[in-house]
């Protein structure tokens, strides 16, 4: 049984504030690192295997946590913070979490969400997604797939808007990531039941430094996306 929550959260039309984040694409495009669909595919693949895997693993772990009487949100929150060294990325993750929370509270009201918010009113996006998928009865793998897909679909859509890339070609580039996506989901789902300190933590050095540069540039020139 597929989780409707996972489907809803991964839908570009879900009103959770995702469209104002480019996931580093705006900065990468400004630097000329992304100029066309091939660069974008390579960027997305790197993003998926790093930030995407971290998010997917924490979303999967959140599904497991949501089913426990004491979810231990504070520990997951702290471990995810420690895996997100760029302050700008933590801000972006929490901004998206809080934005999605607004819609989630109306659609999937639950004491599980209340407990998560009691730990932080601005939950990380991955934890919010995992909590909601868990409330909906979805599996860790479904939450991981949702997060991993969002880690590439959001930035891809930003690239279409910023660079005027052919949306059909960009869609094909996302679909071409299928093997990497499946691998990330499998790895995340497998990690879901581990103690939080053992969850994966792959770094994305250029994404991290670009996230800080994005904020920096926003003060001097124009940036159309929050991140």
């Amino acid at each position, binding site marked *: 049984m597929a989780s409707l929550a996972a489907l809803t959260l991964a839908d570009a039309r879900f009103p959770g504030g995702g469209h104002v984040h480019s996931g580093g694409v705006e900065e990468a495009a400004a630097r000329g690192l992304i100029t066309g669909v091939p660069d974008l595919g*390579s*960027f997305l693949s*790197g993003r998926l295997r790093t930030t995407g895997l971290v998010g997917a693993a924490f979303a999967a772990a959140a599904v497991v946590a949501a089913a426990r009487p004491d979810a231990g949100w504070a520990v997951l929150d702290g471990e995810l913070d420690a895996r997100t060294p*760029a302050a700008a990325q933590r801000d972006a993750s929490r901004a998206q979490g809080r934005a999605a929370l607004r819609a989630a509270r109306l659609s999937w009201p639950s004491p599980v969400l209340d407990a998560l918010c009691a730990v932080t009113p601005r939950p990380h996006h991955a934890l919010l997604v995992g909590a909601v998928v868990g409330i909906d009865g979805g599996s860790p793998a479904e939450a991981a797939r949702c997060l991993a897909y969002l880690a590439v679909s959001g930035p891809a859509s930003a690239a279409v808007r910023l660079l005027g890339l052919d949306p059909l070609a960009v869609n094909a580039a996302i679909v071409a990531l299928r093997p990497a996506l499946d691998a990330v989901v499998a790895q995340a789902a497998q990690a879901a039941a581990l103690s939080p300190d053992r969850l994966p933590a792959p770094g994305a*050095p*250029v994404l991290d430094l670009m996230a*800080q*540069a994005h904020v920096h540039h926003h003060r001097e020139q124009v940036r159309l996306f929050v991140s």
Partner: protein
Amino acid sequence: MLARARIVVERRGARTVVRELRSQPPLTLLPQRGAVASRSPAATVHMLSSATTPLGGDDVGLEVVVGPGAHLVLTGVAATLALPGQGTSGPSRLVVRLTVGDGAAVQYLPEPTVVTRRADHRGELHAELGAGARLRCREVLVAGRTAEPSGRYLGLTRVVDTATGRPLLVQEQELGDPTLHASGAHLAGRRVLGTEVLVWGEDPPTGLAGEWWSLSPLAGRGSLATAVGTDAVTAGRGLAHAIAGHPGWAATTLTSAAP
């Protein structure tokens, strides 16, 4: 080769003294002596490894214990070349454990690690910080010698504040997959990755960034500098820019002769 090296330093009066020092090949630890050393409040120990290590199959452990209030500087002498072993030797491994007491400080500054072709190297760095403990940890990774494809490297850095039990930084780095290196999200085609953790007093209120470097405050305490470059000199310069913007570190370098 299996090796376990160990250093224990403690504070005596205004100075830090080495209480225990165990080298084991291929890792040799050499305390700095002489007039300069005796004037400095910090103890400095050089890390020397024999030319052909780590080699596939090597398993090297370094345990460092810095007693309350002591200050230890560990520096590398030459770049490390990670080399493949023979046959089915398995990966080479270097595990460093830093236990930093209350109010103590450690600087762990090895020279760059060059991951040569067909090498398979694992690095782990675990740091446990007591109340008010300070840490400076540098890692420079080079994906292959010039014009050489990179071998495989997997590294883990985990820094924990034992006073609160809170993890400050957990980060893995991976080298050796050319498609990953090429990605604008990972190394953007650069060959060298430098990171430097600074848990050293005041952190910047917001991140700083140059073209290929950044300094960002961590969520708990501490900051992470990140730089990439086409060579180790460029990446090193990026790190230097980044940490120059760290208020806690800048205050130290102004008031004392930290290396």
